[in-house]
C-alpha cells in the first residue's frame, strides 16, 4: 500500500463516522478501530486507523498532524539564534541533537567554523542526548509489551544523564546551548569526572535491559519475526537511523559523511542486525547506547583546550544562499534545508525529521498482523510525536 489518496482518506473518515453511529450491537468482523489520537500506546497524539478482521489487521492508516506546531513557518519570522529555541522541541527527548544540524547549516552559510573544543563538546552533548533519548526507548518497549518495571529503571537512569546535560547547558529538556560559531559556555568544573560515573551507570542499565527485556522468552516471542522490514522496502520508504540499521543496512551518517562533529576522530563501530524485525530494532538500539557511552568517554578524554566560540558578529546576518545539512540524530536522519536572503531571519527552513519517514511505513508494515503486534511494532519503530508533526 502506498500513501492513501484523498478519496481513500475520505472513505475512511466516512466509515469512521458510520461506526460511531452503530448502537450497542458491535461487530468484530470488518471492524474499524481507532488507535489514538488519545491512546495510551502512542504517547502523543498519533492516530492510527486500523480495519480489523477479528484480531487481524486488514489495513492501517496513520493520521498525523494532531500536534503540528508550524515550526517551519515560525522559523521564518525568528532570527537565527532564536530558531534554536523552537527546534529544541521537535524531538523533545534528545533536544540538543535537534539544534546541531541547524547550527551546522547556518555555519556553513556564514562560512565560520566552530573551534575544536566546541566541536568536541558538541559531540559529547550530542551523544549524551542520544543516550537520554534511547534509554527511554529501551524501557518503554517493555511497557508496550506489558512489562511495567523496565521503564522505571529507564526513567531513573535517564535522570543522571539529564543532570549532566543540565549541569552544562542549564536546561534539562531544552538546552538551547548551541550557538553559531561555537557554544554558549565552557564545561563546568568537575563535570568530566561526574559524567564518567554516569556512563558507568548507563552501561549497567544496558546490561540490565539485555537480561531483563531482551533476554526474556516472552519478549523474544513477541518481537522475533514480527514487523520484518526488508532493507529495500525500508530504504524505499526513507527510513533511517537504527530502524534501517536493524534491517542490515550499514548506513550511519556519523561515519559515512562529515557532519562537522568529532565523530571521525573517535574509535567506534556501527551496529547492524540482519533480521529487520522488532527484536533487531531493540537490539541495535541497545548496542548503540553502549557505543554512545564509549564515544562520550573518548570525547571526555580527548577534549582539546581552547576557546569554545569562534569570532562571529554580534548581530548575525546570514549571507544569501542555500545549505542542507543532515546529521544522524537519535531517531534517525535529521536535516535542515535553509534558504537565506541575507537577512536577520531565514527565508525558508525545511525540516526533515526522522520519525515522519519512519512511521510512513506503517500502512505497509501493519497489514496482516495481529492487534497486539501493532503496538509492539509501533513501539519498536520508536517515534516521537513532535518529530513526526513538527
Amino acid at each position, binding site marked *: 500500500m502506498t500513501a492513501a489518496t484523498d478519496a481513500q482518506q475520505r472513505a475512511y473518515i466516512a466509515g469512521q463516522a458510520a461506526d460511531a453511529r452503530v448502537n450497542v*450491537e458491535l461487530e468484530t*468482523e470488518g471492524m474499524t478501530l481507532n488507535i489514538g489520537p488519545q491512546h495510551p500506546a502512542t504517547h502523543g497524539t498519533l492516530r492510527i486507523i486500523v480495519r480489523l478482521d477479528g484480531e487481524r489487521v486488514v489495513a492501517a492508516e496513520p493520521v498525523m498532524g494532531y500536534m503540528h506546531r508550524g515550526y517551519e513557518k515560525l522559523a521564518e519570522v525568528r532570527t537565527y539564534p532564536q530558531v534554536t529555541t523552537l527546534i529544541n522541541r521537535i524531538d523533545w527527548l534528545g533536544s540538543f541533537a535537534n539544534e546541531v544540524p541547524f547550527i551546522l547549516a547556518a555555519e556553513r552559510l556564514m562560512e565560520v567554523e566552530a573551534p575544536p573544543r566546541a566541536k568536541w563538546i558538541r559531540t559529547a552533548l550530542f551523544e549524551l542526548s542520544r543516550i537520554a533519548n534511547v534509554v527511554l526507548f529501551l524501557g518503554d518497549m517493555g511497557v508496550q509489551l506489558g512489562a511495567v518495571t523496565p521503564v522505571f529503571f529507564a526513567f531513573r537512569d535517564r535522570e543522571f544523564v539529564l543532570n549532566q546535560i543540565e549541569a552544562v547547558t542549564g536546561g534539562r529538556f531544552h538546552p538551547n546551548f548551541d550557538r553559531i560559531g561555537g557554544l554558549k559556555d565552557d564545561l563546568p568544573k568537575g563535570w568530566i569526572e561526574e559524567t564518567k560515573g554516569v556512563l558507568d551507570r548507563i552501561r549497567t542499565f544496558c546490561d540490565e535491559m539485555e537480561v531483563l527485556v531482551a533476554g526474556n522468552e516472552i519478549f523474544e516471542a513477541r518481537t522475533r519475526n514480527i514487523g520484518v522490514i526488508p532493507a529495500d522496502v525500508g530504504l524505499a520508504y526513507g527510513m533511517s537511523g537504527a530502524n534501517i540499521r536493524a534491517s542490515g543496512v550499514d548506513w550511519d551518517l556519523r561515519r559515512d559523511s562529515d557532519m562537522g562533529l568529532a565523530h571521525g576522530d573517535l574509535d567506534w563501530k556501527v551496529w547492524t542486525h540482519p533480521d529487520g524485525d522488532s527484536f533487531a530494532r531493540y537490539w541495535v538500539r541497545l548496542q548503540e547506547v553502549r557505543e554512545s557511552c564509549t564515544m562520550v568517554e573518548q570525547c571526555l578524554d580527548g577534549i582539546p583546550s581552547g576557546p569554545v566560540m569562534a569570532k562571529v558578529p554580534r548581530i548575525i546576518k546570514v549571507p544569501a544562499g542555500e545549505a542542507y545539512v543532515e546529521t544522524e540524530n537519535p531517531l534517525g536522519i535529521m536535516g535542515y534545508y535553509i534558504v537565506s536572503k541575507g537577512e536577520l531571519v531565514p527565508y525558508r527552513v525545511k525540516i526533515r525529521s526522522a520519525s515522519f519517514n519512519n512511521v510512513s511505513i506503517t500502512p505497509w508494515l501493519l497489514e496482516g498482523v495481529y492487534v497486539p503486534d501493532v503496538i509492539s511494532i509501533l513501539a519498536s519503530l520508536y517515534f516521537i510525536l513532535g518529530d513526526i508533526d513538527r
Partner: protein
Amino acid sequence: MAALQGFDSLTSGDTVVAQNIAFGILAVVMIVAALRMVTTLNVVHAALYLVIVLAGAAGIFILLGAEFVGVTQVLVYIGAIVVLFLFGIMLTRGALGEDEEANIEKRRMAVLVGVLVLVVTGGAVLDSFGDAAVNRAAPSLTAEIGDSIFSQYIVPFEAVSVLLLAALIGAIVIARKD
C-alpha cells in the same frame, strides 16, 4: 447453599417452610426469566435471561439434594454453554444480534401449542403423582454418583464420551473457514 444448611435446623416434621419459600422464589424467578427469554428481541438479553433460568435450575437441584448435578449445571451450562452463546452472538452481531418480531399467526400457534403442552403434562403430572412428597434426608453423596456412573451406567457413559468427541470434531469441521 449456605442458607440450605441452616434450613435443616428449621425442620419440624414434614413441613419444611424455608425450603418451600426458597422453591417459590426460585420458581417465580425462573418462569419470569424464561418468559422474558423467549419474548425479548435482543439476543444478548435472551442469553442473560437464560443464565438466570439456569442458575435457578442449579438452585432447584441443590434444593433437591443433588449437589453434584447443581455444581455441574453451573460449570457446564453457565460457565461454558451460555458463554459459547454470547461469544457466538458477539462475534457475528447484526443478523445474530436482533430478531425481528415473528409474524402474528405463527406466534398465536406457538402460544396455543405451548399452553396445550402445559395443560396436558401438568394434568398428567397432577393425575399420576398425587401428593407424593420429596423426603430429602441428606444430600446425595458425590462418591455414590461416581460409583454408579462407572458400574451401572458405564455403557451410557462411554456412549456420551464418544458423542462428545464426535461433536467436538464435527463442530470444528463445520465451523472451519475454507
